[in-house]
């Protein structure tokens, strides 16, 4: 072969390659092929009913008191992928902590008011540090509500340490409460439920659970009350935890409201899911809970994408705390998101979001 012919072949090869490449990339992704090959978002419109209103009280959103100490504990254990039961947390000598213990917890009281005027209470998560949670439950009268059977359900969003390890604080007052969990608990989390003791973190539950346990399979919608449903997501939560359940409510005449523990599936994913699956889901009235964006004041430009797009969802009232992170809240406020303010009491440090003892009415 002469070099001319090879050069000719080369150019021909390049030309064929370019055309093929065009069809492989741009061609296929043009609108014609797209409409055939990319699945349309299937819009269902599940009717979960409606309710009159919701009152939410943050019992504790201070999952831990010192970010710096918390991150060091994880670093010493070997990073964020190490199982939560394999981490030695700082429980003594932390200046910002509760009696020197860095552990706090996340727990909220939700009261639903139905169309007929009747009411039901639900306890979302049980925090982490049993002493701290006991104190907060007593300060907010949760202890009496539990004893008097005023709380219908204990709803555990997921078995992360700061949302679940404090179960003893709730069982102290009512060990036979009805409990709902996502059906993806870690094996050790079940052990804790039946009276387990883990000396390393350290965490224990001296009061074995005696009530009814309802497990929710992932990727499903479970109607709980008129206008209230539990929605379960299959999502990685970190430190060995998988799957989280969320409360989705439909407030009559106002729109939908979401109540989350951590929102590990992501706020936009949650809002998109509701828009595509729940009747009336394109009108978002309220958002409450941990939103898991910058829990340790860690950042990622992906979070800026969220801050730049969240306003498109026209959330009327956004009440967040805990793992949402102060940086996120400051950035959201700066772009005009209607963030509900708190009062910075009971060891919550700042008033830019809903803190310990603060209430929101939806």
């Amino acid at each position: 072969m002469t070099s001319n012919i090879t050069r000719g072949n080369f150019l021909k090869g390049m030309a064929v390659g370019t055309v093929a490449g065009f069809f492989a990339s741009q061609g296929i992704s043009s609108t014609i092929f797209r409409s055939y090959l990319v699945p349309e978002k299937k819009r269902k419109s599940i009717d979960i009913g409606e309710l009159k209103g919701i009152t939410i009280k943050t019992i504790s959103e201070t999952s831990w008191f010192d970010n710096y100490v918390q991150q060091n504990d994880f670093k010493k254990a070997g990073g964020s992928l190490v199982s939560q039961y394999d981490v030695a947390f700082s429980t003594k000598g932390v200046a910002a902590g509760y009696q020197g213990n860095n552990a706090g917890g996340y727990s909220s009281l939700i009261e639903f008011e139905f169309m007929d005027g009747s009411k039901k209470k639900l306890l979302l998560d049980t925090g982490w540090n049993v002493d701290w949670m006991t104190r907060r439950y007593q300060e907010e009268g949760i202890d009496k509500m539990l004893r008097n059977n005023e709380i219908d359900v204990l709803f555990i969003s997921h078995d992360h340490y700061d949302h679940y390890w404090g179960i003893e604080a709730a069982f102290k007052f009512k060990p036979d409460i009805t409990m709902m969990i996502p059906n993806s608990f870690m094996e050790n989390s079940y052990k804790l439920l039946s009276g387990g003791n883990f000396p390393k973190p350290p965490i224990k539950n001296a009061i074995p659970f005696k009530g009814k346990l309802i497990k929710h399979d992932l990727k499903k919608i479970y109607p709980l009350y008129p206008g209230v449903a539990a929605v379960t997501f299959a999502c990685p939560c970190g430190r060995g935890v998988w799957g989280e359940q969320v409360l989705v409510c439909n407030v009559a005449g106002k729109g939908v409201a979401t109540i989350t523990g951590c929102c590990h599936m992501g706020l936009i994913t949650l809002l998109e899911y509701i828009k595509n699956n729940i009747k009336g889901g394109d009108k978002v009235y309220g958002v409450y809970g941990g939103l898991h964006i910058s829990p340790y004041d860690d950042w990622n430009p992906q979070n800026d994408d969220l801050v730049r797009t969240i306003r498109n969802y026209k959330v009327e009232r956004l009440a967040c705390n805990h793992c949402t992170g102060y940086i996120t809240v400051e950035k959201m406020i700066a772009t005009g998101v209607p963030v509900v303010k708190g009062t910075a009491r009971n060891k919550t440090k700042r008033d830019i979001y809903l803190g310990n003892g603060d209430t929101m009415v939806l």
Partner: protein
Amino acid sequence: MKILDWVSVRKLESRWGLFPSGILNVAVMLTVFMILWRVFMDPRGMMRMYTPMYGYAYVQWFLVAVLIAWLVMRLWPLQNSSLVSGLHPALKGAIWFCLCALFMLFMVNVVLKMMIGGMSIPYFSEDTLLSLKQNAFNAREYSHQAITMVGGMTALIIPIWVLHLKNWPAREIQRGSGYLTSLMLIFFLATVGFLLLYHPHLGILFYPWQVYAASMPWWEGLANTLSSNFCLGLMMSWTAALWIIQVTYEGYPFKLIDNHPLRPLAGILGTLLFGLILFSGFHFLQEMAWGAPVRGAKLVAAVDWRYLHSGETSLFMLLISLIWGFYFKNWPRQYSVEVNFLIRTVIVGVGTFLFYIFYYKFNAGILGQQPGYSNPLQFPLAATSLIVALLLAHSWFFDMWPGEKVTNLQEFVAEPEVTSPAGEPATR
């Protein structure tokens, strides 16, 4: 005696036939991988360096060290036959392996962390970030992310420079001055690439945005995200394209115009085009599987993660291409070029698909990672880059021992100098 192009001039032969030897060698390589992973990386193991970026940074620079040692430096300054052909392959390989590890430690700990991180750009040093009151997680992950990205950029420039610019000027100046000039040119381009493609990402990683020290990401309008995962994914796909063309397609079609003055440009643009096809093709497959991404969403729906994952899938493909090329000698070779290429394309395509399924089904159990396609701690390339580094080291330093042996050792005993016969630098 000096051996200038050992990998090009040595002749390898399977000891027990192509497939038995290939399978044995893959098993040996993967065993070494599992041991290294358990000791250094696994979050359930001893050192627990997969945090993920902490361990990933070292893996990335180990890979760069291996690439530099052979492709750029041609084993200089140790081209003496005693260290190249004299010793038992296992011993010789182990020495080169350790030298690469030393180079890795020098680049990561001394150059990037101590010098640049300590005296110039704080985000390169965990200690500096800690002293600036970043928490332990941010300090560790951010600094090692930056270190990994410089390494990733270097690992892209090396094959461009070596395969398409003939490792200029080292190809003509086969002495220390030539090799070092090539290396410096590669480092220069990698630095410029890093500053253009990744530095803006790191500028907005801190709060408040470091707008006087880094530009706002210029790709936002193009990519619909502020994250440099857009650039990163594209660079990964380009890296994969460079190697797949070189290994699976034996350097075609660029081989046909080897002496044409526009050959370097054709090679660079042609591989970039192939990289773009991989990048957008894998992006499109994801849209078919998971629907269109949504800006601001996390996990599989995130815009930036889709770009990253296109790059990751491209590099999965590269891994299969390399395993097939290195261990199974790019079987088949007996038919016409077109038929060979077609069969290999099917093998690499199916292999990538199977590996993808396997990886995401078992990575949590085998590697100790978090399950799921997308999560903030899932970096499949930490593991696959280590496999690639071991595979390349297996060929270049260990002469594919034990599955293969060098058959022309006696040639390197007395002759003064042996150079590569063709202009093409050997990669296998």
